[in-house]
């Protein structure tokens, strides 16, 4: 059954390979500097490596946007995104899987009445502007530098050709790696919360966790997409918008690769953090946007002549249409899955203002009479609860989110056998001991479990969200999510 659900993600991976990944080597192949076969092989290998080795960075952001928490939902979200992508490809527009998947997750959120994390949404949508802009700036700077270098240090045409060729392959491989790392979350991200955490031992040599295995499979699907169907897109990207020379093709690939890398490198993020510099959000961005930004950047520096603005307009229109189409498709698809096939597309996330919740809320200084009136009431989903909060209370946005976080009902039992199944490398000794001390205890809210664990050891404690604690909190949240997923007691409805 899991394999069936994954099939839509593999379909999405394939279309990402056929479209987004084609962008990386598109200019190289279109200028005939690199053979299609060479490009496809390099691209395939490095996409898989990037996905498996550094894929985790951007998954968190998608996870925050909306935690698609049932396989049926994940299936439909991926399928809707893949169909939107396919549709756009048929229309001849460079596709952005990133936008499709965001649209599809929003569709899921609306359908299930889940809350959309506005911060994450803004973070992602702003990169849709920042990413092409950044690529354009990089490309313009690289182009000017390349022109200066070539004028100042004359290189023989043939040597320049050989260097450009080598540069294209190196930069393209780097770009493919960054694309794999950055975009694998688009393909497999929605399946991460739905998969249990188990490590797999490969011939006793090394272990991969389930996420890496998931990313490996997704990476392979992308690679197959590149090998089987990306040729036409490569030609379109490299020639459709603006005529590129081999050197400018290299500039485009370099600018794109760097932008993808910036948005997906966890090591860069921690380096920036330790040096007190502003960080770049780890968000899945679109290679189409990066490439088109880079091409336009060069065109502007060259005086803006020769750009086909009609093509550009269509492309940008496609970027706006993709998430909308994906959202609608996801909504309709989820409706069908749930009502026609009786599939479970979301784990219920009821809200309940119990005594304990009210106590906890007042500890935060948020006690209000109006909240007391909702005491003991249950709400089916986030939307219903939010409507009640808006109508019955005078809480503002931030406080409301806090109340919602505390009121989210769940059910956890710390089963000792499940502690044993934890991957030893995932938790510290102190964290494992803290879990053991809570054996057979049950909790009805995530925060109860979290705070109880933090009482046992500071290693489970979330520190104030500032730059210094960023990495610590990120690691703790990642582990907490695995703890929630492991010890959650499935509701009756879930077993359906």
């Amino acid at each position, binding site marked *: 059954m899991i394999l069936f659900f994954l099939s839509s993600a593999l379909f999405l991976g394939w279309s990402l390979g056929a479209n987004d990944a084609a962008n990386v080597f598109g200019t190289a192949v279109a*200028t*005939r*500097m690199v*053979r299609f076969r060479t490009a496809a092989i390099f691209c395939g290998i490095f996409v898989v490596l990037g996905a498996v080795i550094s894929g985790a960075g951007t998954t968190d952001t998608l996870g925050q946007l909306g935690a698609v928490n049932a396989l049926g939902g994940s299936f439909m979200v991926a399928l809707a995104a893949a169909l939107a992508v396919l549709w756009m490809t048929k229309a001849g527009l460079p596709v952005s899987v990133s936008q499709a998947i965001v649209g599809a997750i929003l569709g899921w959120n609306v359908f299930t009445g889940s809350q959309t994390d506005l911060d994450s949404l803004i973070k992602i949508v702003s990169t849709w502007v920042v990413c092409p802009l950044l690529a354009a700036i990089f490309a313009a700077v690289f*182009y000017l530098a*390349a*022109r200066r270098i*070539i*004028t100042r240090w*004359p*290189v*023989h*045409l*043939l*040597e320049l*050709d*050989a260097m450009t*060729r*080598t540069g294209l392959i190196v930069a393209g491989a780097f770009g493919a790696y960054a694309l794999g790392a950055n975009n694998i979350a688009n393909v497999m991200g929605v399946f991460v919360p739905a998969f249990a955490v188990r490590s797999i031992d490969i011939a006793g040599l090394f272990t991969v966790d389930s996420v890496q295995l998931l990313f490996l499979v997704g990476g392979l699907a992308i690679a197959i997409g590149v090998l089987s169907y990306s040729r036409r897109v490569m030609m379109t990207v490299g020639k459709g918008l603006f005529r590129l*020379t*081999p*050197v*400018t093709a290299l500039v485009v690939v370099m600018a794109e690769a760097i932008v993808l890398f910036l948005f997906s490198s966890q090591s860069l993020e921690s380096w920036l953090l330790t040096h007190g510099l502003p960080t770049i959000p780890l968000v899945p961005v679109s290679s189409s946007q990066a490439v088109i930004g880079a091409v336009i950047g060069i065109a502007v520096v060259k005086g803006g002549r020769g750009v086909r603005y009609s093509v550009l307009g269509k492309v940008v229109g496609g970027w706006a249409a993709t998430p909308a189409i994906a959202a609608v498709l996801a909504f309709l698809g989820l409706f069908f899955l749930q009502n026609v096939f009786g599939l479970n597309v979301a784990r219920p996330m009821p809200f309940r203002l119990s005594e304990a919740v009210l106590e906890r809320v007042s500890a935060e200084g948020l006690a209000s009479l109006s909240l007391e009136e909702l005491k003991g009431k249950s709400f089916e989903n986030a939307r219903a609860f939010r409507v009640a909060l808006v109508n019955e209370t005078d809480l503002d946005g931030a406080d409301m989110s806090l109340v919602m976080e505390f009121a989210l009902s769940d059910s956890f039992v710390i089963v000792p056998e499940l502690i044993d199944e934890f991957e030893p490398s995932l938790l510290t000794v102190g964290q494992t001991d803290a879990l053991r001390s809570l054996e057979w205890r049950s909790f009805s809210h995530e925060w109860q479990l979290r705070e109880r664990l933090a009482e046992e050891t500071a290693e489970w404690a979330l520190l104030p969200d500032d730059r210094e604690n960023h990495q610590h909190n990120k690691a703790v949240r990642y582990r907490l999510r695995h703890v929630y997923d492991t010890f959650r007691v499935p509701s009756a409805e879930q077993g359906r």
Partner: protein
Amino acid sequence: MTRIFAKTKLLESQIDEYLNDTSQVGLLFLEAIKDYLEGRLEEFESRRQQVGELENHADELRRDIKRQLYAETLIPESRGDVLGILENTDEVINAAKVTLTQVSAEHPDIPDELDADFIELTDYGNRAVQELVMGIRAFFRTAAVTDFVHKVSFWEKEADTVAERLRRRIFAMDEELACKIHRGSFVRHIDTVADQAEDVSERLSISAIKRSI
């Protein structure tokens, strides 16, 4: 990787060799005409033979360069231009060779008073060829070919002026018309070398614009 760069080096040296051949043909052409006009027929024939050998060698080089450029899909953007330039340069070599062959076969009777003008005409043709060769070398490195193209054009015009003067002088002579027409045809043949060089240089300037990144 090293394979790519090794091949590039080989091809580079072949193109250099081809341009050396072209330059040498220009120099030999001038010396051969001088030899003929000054009655050193043995030396003339030896130089004519050398030009023939250089032409064959250049042809082989050009074919090999063409084969490599296409087989290895090198310089995809400039390949057509480069081959066009090399092929047109071949026409310059041909013009020199054909002229010398005709001189050898037809033994035109050039009176001594025209020697200086004939040598001047040939010299300008040679200068145009030398500037063209330098221009092509520059094309491969910097794409800054304007100065060379300008000089080729200058020497071609100088050659035209001398050719016209020569023709007027020839036809003003009190000789048989057949003889005058025969001498006139050699003026035209020698002048072709500069004309061909100018044709290539024009193509070169267009290719240089396309070459800029």
